[in-house]
C-alpha cells in the first residue's frame, strides 16, 4: 500500500522539496488512503465515541488521528498494522485529552453519554450497551472495546495502550465481570418492562 508517489488529484504543488527523502512522503496515495479510510474510520470512530463518551470530541480526534497517521512514518506490514498504529495514535490522543487541565479527567463520567444525535433512533444493542458503559471508567471502556469489539490480543492491547501486558488480563477480567453484571441488570430491566 505504501507508495512513494504523492502526486494526485489533491496534490499540493511543491510539497516534495528537492532532495526529499522517502520518509518525507505520505505513506499512501490519495486513492489508497481513501479506501483505507472508508474501511477503518467507522470502527475507529465507534471506539473513540464509546471511550470518550463525546461525539464531537470523537470526530475531532478521528480527524487528528488520520492526520498524524498520514504525517508519520507508518509501520510496514499492511493494513492490519496500519489499523493497530491508528488505534495507538487515537489512544494517545485520548490520553493527551484527559491529561489536559480542564473540567473532565480520566475518571469523569460525561453527562449525556452517547445521546442520540440528529433525532436518529439508536439500535437495540447500543441501547443495552451504552448505559452499562456509562458506569465504566474510560480505561475499562478502552480495554473492553479493544478486546471484545476489535478482537485484539492482550499483547496488541498493550502495544496500543502502553499498559503492561501482564496487567491487562486482570484489568480486562475485572472490567468484563463488571460490565457483564451491568448488562444482565439492563437486560432484566428490559424484560421486566416488556
Amino acid at each position, binding site marked *: 500500500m505504501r507508495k512513494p508517489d504523492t502526486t494526485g488529484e489533491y496534490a499540493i504543488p511543491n510539497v516534495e522539496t528537492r532532495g526529499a527523502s522517502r520518509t518525507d512522503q505520505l505513506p499512501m496515495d*490519495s486513492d489508497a488512503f481513501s479506501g483505507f479510510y472508508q474501511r477503518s474510520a467507522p470502527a475507529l470512530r465507534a471506539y473513540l465515541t464509546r471511550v470518550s463518551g463525546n461525539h464531537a470530541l470523537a470526530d475531532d480526534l478521528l480527524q487528528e488521528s488520520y492526520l498524524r497517521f498520514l504525517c508519520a512514518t507508518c509501520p510496514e506490514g499492511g493494513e492490519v498494522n496500519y489499523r493497530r498504529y491508528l488505534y495507538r495514535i487515537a489512544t494517545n490522543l485520548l490520553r493527551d485529552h484527559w491529561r489536559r487541565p480542564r473540567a473532565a479527567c480520566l475518571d469523569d463520567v460525561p453527562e449525556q453519554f452517547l445521546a442520540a444525535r440528529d433525532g436518529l433512533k439508536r439500535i437495540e444493542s447500543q441501547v443495552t450497551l451504552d448505559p452499562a458503559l456509562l458506569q465504566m471508567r474510560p480505561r475499562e471502556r478502552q480495554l473492553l472495546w479493544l478486546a471484545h469489539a*476489535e478482537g485484539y490480543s492482550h499483547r496488541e492491547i498493550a502495544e496500543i495502550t502502553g499498559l503492561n501486558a501482564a496487567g491487562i488480563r486482570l484489568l480486562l477480567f475485572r472490567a468484563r465481570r463488571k*460490565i457483564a453484571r451491568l448488562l444482565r441488570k439492563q437486560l432484566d430491566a428490559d424484560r421486566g418492562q416488556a
Partner: protein
Amino acid sequence: MMLSNCTYEKELTQALKDGHWPQGCGQELRAHVNACGTCSDLVLVTQTFQRVRSESDIAAPAVSPSLLWWRAQLRRRNAAEQRVAQPITIAQTFAWSVTALVGIIFVASQYRSGLHWASWWSELVPSRTFHLLSVGSEPVGWNLALLISGLGVLALLSAVVVYLASEKS
C-alpha cells in the same frame, strides 16, 4: 477479586472471534458456558460489543478522506518549511546576540574611559560628515575601530558557521 483461570476460555474466545459460537461449537463447550460464570460473562460481553461494532460500520465518517489527505499534505509542507527556516532563525538569533554583546562591551569600554559621548558628538556634528581619517588620527580611536570591525567580522562568520552547522544537522 480473584482472576479465574478457566481452561475453556481460550477456545471460547477464538470461537467468538471467528463467529463459530454457538452453532460451530461442541456440546461440551456449550454445557460448560452454561455452568461457568467467567465464560458466560465472556459470551455476553463479546456478543454485545461485536453487535455494536458491526452496527457502527454502517455509519459514514463525518469527513471526506480527500480532505484529510489534502490537510496532511499541507501539514507536511508546513513542517518541511519550518525545518528549512530553523537554521536561519538560529543563525539570526546568534548574530543578534553577538552584536548585542559587542555593543555592551563597547559601551562598557567607553564608560571606563570617561564617557566622552558629548564631546565626540559635538566634534562630529559641525562637520556634517564622518571623516574616517580624523577618527583614525588618534591611536586609541584606531584600536577601537579595529576592535569593533574585528568583532563584527567575527559575529558574521560565526553566524555563517552556525547556519551551515545547523543546516547540515
